């Protein structure tokens, strides 16, 4: 299973990748914003994307829309990890094409559960 972790915080990328490693997922690529994420997707094969919302240059919601608009990536599962957890935020993210949602702060168990839910869907 290959992951792309998109977050402008290097700390949060490391936390998520550490969590994925502990869950047995060791192939993880990184990007610092949505635009870099699209560049990575053009050159790397990925099975699941984990993205933040608030990022410079291209936000997580804009990134999700770009992924869905691209024939090569439109079916890619997207999990959003963010502090934006108001009801309106979740609706906006789902409309943009996000498959599931993790609210920060999170536990490894939550990440595992959401990954499994996204892959089952």
């Amino acid at each position: 299973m290959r992951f792309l972790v998109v977050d402008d915080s290097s700390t949060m990328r490391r936390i998520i990748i550490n969590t994925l490693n502990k869950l047995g997922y060791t192939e993880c690529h990184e990007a610092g914003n949505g635009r870099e994420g699209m560049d990575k997707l053009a050159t790397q094969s990925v099975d699941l994307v984990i993205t933040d919302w608030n990022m410079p240059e291209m936000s997580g919601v804009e990134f999700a829309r770009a992924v869905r608009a691209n024939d090569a990536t439109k079916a890619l599962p997207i999990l959003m990890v963010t502090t934006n957890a108001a009801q309106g935020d979740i609706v906006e993210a789902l409309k943009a094409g996000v498959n599931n949602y993790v609210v920060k702060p999170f536990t490894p168990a939550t990440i595992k559960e959401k990954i499994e839910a996204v892959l089952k869907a």
Partner: protein
Amino acid sequence: MSVPESLIASLVSATEEVFDTMLATTLVRQTGADGALAAPANVVATVAFAGHRRGLVVLYSSMTAARAITGSMLGIPIEDVNGEVPDAMGEVANMVAGTFRTRLAASEPASDISVPTVTIGNDFSTLYSSAVHRTRCPFDMQGEQISVELILTGEADLKRR
């Protein structure tokens, strides 16, 4: 206008949740709000919010506490922490402010939060105009003092309700 107790309670519980979940660290609330820091803060992480309410959430810590927080978040020994403190402390402040925002959004229109800014140094203080309302909540973190502060500028925007 003073800072409403309900906002202070939301900020305190948001801070405790972030430290408990992401750092496996139980914070012990110290008595009283508006407490002065026992020692000067070397690391100050700030996130602004605007919309229905306007203001700042500020996280203060010593460099020792910031290195402990960073090491715990990244799963590395404190002695190996090297340059990661600004990003890690900004992320903690972001999660505290974001959790605080979400709690408020359950009962009022949501505000937006900014990206975090982090100031690190010695012999500095943060000053605001007299028109703001501030409450600082100190915590003990395994012998180190940290605190979070809520700064409000003006009343909530009731017209947007």
